[in-house]
């Protein structure tokens, strides 16, 4: 594209329709430009996972499960547990997803969720160490997009956090340097609750949490993550197109406001155990 041109005729017509609605602060599904779609969160629904959550955000449906294993720490962080995030855009979720190993979109989704959790300091990885330099917990956070109606980023992070919040980690005892399952489990304290909100820009207007028809015609979109203190903890411009610099201030303010709305919803729905303030502040 040259900056914002979209040449395809049908796309143009849809773009005009969506843009004209936006000028009146309206959207094709009746929302206000700054309204999120409705969010539902179910946790603990996969008994074989150590933690799991099914999250819907409008018509987008995402299932995340976590398996806990014991492994070796990274040599430069001998006293910290490890987590990895994978994301699969399942072909049953959309005609635009193909079977096979994650393409660049799946990789991007996983990495944006990973960065938001990591830089948003959701976990205290030191709590996941069993034997320093030897044995630590390894959390495999696996995200599956089951139905894709636009913006998989925000619900993916919500489902990852909901699965983490309700995670039951097997307890181990250390006997002569070897670790053995005790049969009990413990809950992980979260040290922060970072959430993201996807922003779409069309002309000089913007909207939050685009659904699929909107996504297709936006000039550009970006995902912004913030924590409960209003810090920005992750940004990802995820499509081609220009972001006018002068729009960014308002967009950022809106991001802080909308992620706070998600955070409230999350705290209502998910029995999260938050670390005491003092602890959470360290790193």
């Amino acid at each position, binding site marked *: 594209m040259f900056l914002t041109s979209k040449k395809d005729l049908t796309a143009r017509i849809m773009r005009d329709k969506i843009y004209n609605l936006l000028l009146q602060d309206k959207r094709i599904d009746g929302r206000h430009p700054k309204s999120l779609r409705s969010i539902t969160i*179910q946790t603990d629904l996969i008994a074989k996972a150590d933690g799991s959550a099914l999250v819907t955000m409008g018509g987008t*449906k995402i299932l995340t499960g976590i398996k806990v294993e014991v492994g070796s720490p990274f040599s430069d962080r001998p006293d910290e547990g490890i987590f990895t995030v994978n994301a699969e855009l399942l072909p*049953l979720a959309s*005609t635009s997803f193909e*079977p096979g190993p994650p393409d660049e979109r799946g990789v991007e989704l996983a990495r944006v969720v990973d960065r938001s959790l990591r830089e948003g300091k959701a976990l205290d990885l030191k709590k996941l160490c069993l034997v320093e330099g030897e044995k630590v917990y390894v959390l495999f956070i696996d995200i599956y997009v*089951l139905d894709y109606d636009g913006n998989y980023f925000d619900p993916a992070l919500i489902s990852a956090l909901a699965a983490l919040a309700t995670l039951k980690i097997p307890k181990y005892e250390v006997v002569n340097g070897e670790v053995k399952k005790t049969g009990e489990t413990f809950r992980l304290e979260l040290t922060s609750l970072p959430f993201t909100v996807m922003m779409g820009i069309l002309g000089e207007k913007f909207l939050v949490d685009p659904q699929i028809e909107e996504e297709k015609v936006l000039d550009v979109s970006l995902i912004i993550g913030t924590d409960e203190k209003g810090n920005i903890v992750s940004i990802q411009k995820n499509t081609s197109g220009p972001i006018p610099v002068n729009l960014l201030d308002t967009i950022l303010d809106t991001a802080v406001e909308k992620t706070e709305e998600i955070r409230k919803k999350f705290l209502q729905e998910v029995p999260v155990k938050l670390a005491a303030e003092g602890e959470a502040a360290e790193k």
Partner: protein
Amino acid sequence: MGDSKPERLIDENGRRIDGRRPDELRPIKIEVGVLDKSDGSAYVEFGGTRVFAAVFGPREAHPKHLALPDRAILNCRYHMTSFSVEERKPLGMTRREVELSKVIREALETVTFLEEFPRASIDVYIEVIQADGGTRTTGLTAASLALADAGIPMADLIAAVAVGKVDGQLVLDLCDVEDKYGEADMPVAMAPRFNSIVLLQLNGRLTPSEFKKGLALAQKGISEIYKLQQEALKKRFSTSKPLEV
């Protein structure tokens, strides 16, 4: 969970590990039309086994050189989430998933009027989100409903269930522990209107007479499942409320 073999899988009252009688199915939940973005879809639970299926098509086969001049290609992918099983399943397709995708596809091909859609493809995706025995039969049961939901013409629905042998006794609809510690697992899928078997495998050891009894037991289960499928389809075409898993 499932870490060690229970002392007995059938108790003195003839009850199974989860309280069922030998010829009893697990609680079954079926919903059709649960995923918006596919042309047809279904969600099926057999006890702890939970499966989504979605169908796309008929649509132009892609890449084109795979298209057949006289009929549609039916593609099928049976896949499990990493956390659906006891030990984390590695990402990507395991050899087991490759094999099951093949036998499920062959079952579906048997009842589908592929000749009506030359040069097209019909893509069936099955996603097992929790595995507690009988995932291929549950997946196939869901897939045939998803095909129906997509309006693909079929000679019949496919209903499927596993039978097995546990502590020497034939039982219907194995759960995971029964599969793991039992003596035989035999998944059976049928097109009930034709009294025809469309999928059949045996992993384990049965005498010919046990095989025959097992098959009869499977047929009994299949006729129950077939009814539930028809009810679910009827419900689908009269209403469409959102799914709660």
